């Protein structure tokens, strides 16, 4: 059970983070990325092609056209403005959070994020 003083300090920190340009931009970019119909269409197309790719690879019937088709969708997906914006916003956010984590960890004497992060599953 987290005590109230800790929660209040966390809430103040969260408030400052939420009001930062980087966090706002991340949420906007994420929303656009997740709700863009063209992105959604490409995702579905990619999933279908990737699944067919794996099946053909397993059967040994993979052709250069299959590889080129998958790469083309991937390339268009990566170059889409919503993807680019989201990827940039995520990268900027990560840099901000790492800086904050550095400041927190300096006072704790150990890495806060590495300790507090959910246990990774492999």
């Amino acid at each position, binding site marked *: 059970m*987290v005590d109230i003083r800790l929660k209040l300090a*966390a*809430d103040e920190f969260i408030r400052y983070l939420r009001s930062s340009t980087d966090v706002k931009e991340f949420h906007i970019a994420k929303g656009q990325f997740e709700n863009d119909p063209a992105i959604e269409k490409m995702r579905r197309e990619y999933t279908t092609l990737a699944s067919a790719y794996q099946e053909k690879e397993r059967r040994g019937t993979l052709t250069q056209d299959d590889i080129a088709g998958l790469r083309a969708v991937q390339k268009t997906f990566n170059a889409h403005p919503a993807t680019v914006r989201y990827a940039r916003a995520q990268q900027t956010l990560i840099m901000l*959070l*790492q*800086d*904050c*984590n550095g400041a927190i960890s300096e006072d704790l004497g150990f890495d806060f994020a590495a300790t507090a992060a*959910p246990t990774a599953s492999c």
Partner: protein
Amino acid sequence: MQPSNQVEERVEPRILEGSKRFAQAIVESTQFQRFEEASKRLRDDPSAWQLLTDFQQTQQLYQTAQSWGGASTQEAERMEQSKQQMLANPTLKEYFESQDEMVLTLKELNVHMTEKLGFDFAGLAKPAGGCC
């Protein structure tokens, strides 16, 4: 971790101050203080330290043998015995319990932050590293 002077140039002062106040609240928490006290006791207790070192060495030997597929029952028993000796030591018992309690508190804090921020703070901020 980035050097402080560069961080101050990149991060808004109030966010940095918020980070520091948050860190201070953690440092002042009962869980952190208990862990600090237990860590100090461990540092000042050579016999407990020896038990910990013995266990770590036994564990390392066992894991190496296991990775070669050559870990024997005897080695497994030796490791278990070393573990039990370690856990029976009051200094080490307190150290591990306080560590578990503090880690749990930090994880709960991160869950709270994640809910309010809409992304996993610690998951994104932790250093990139290999898995397993």
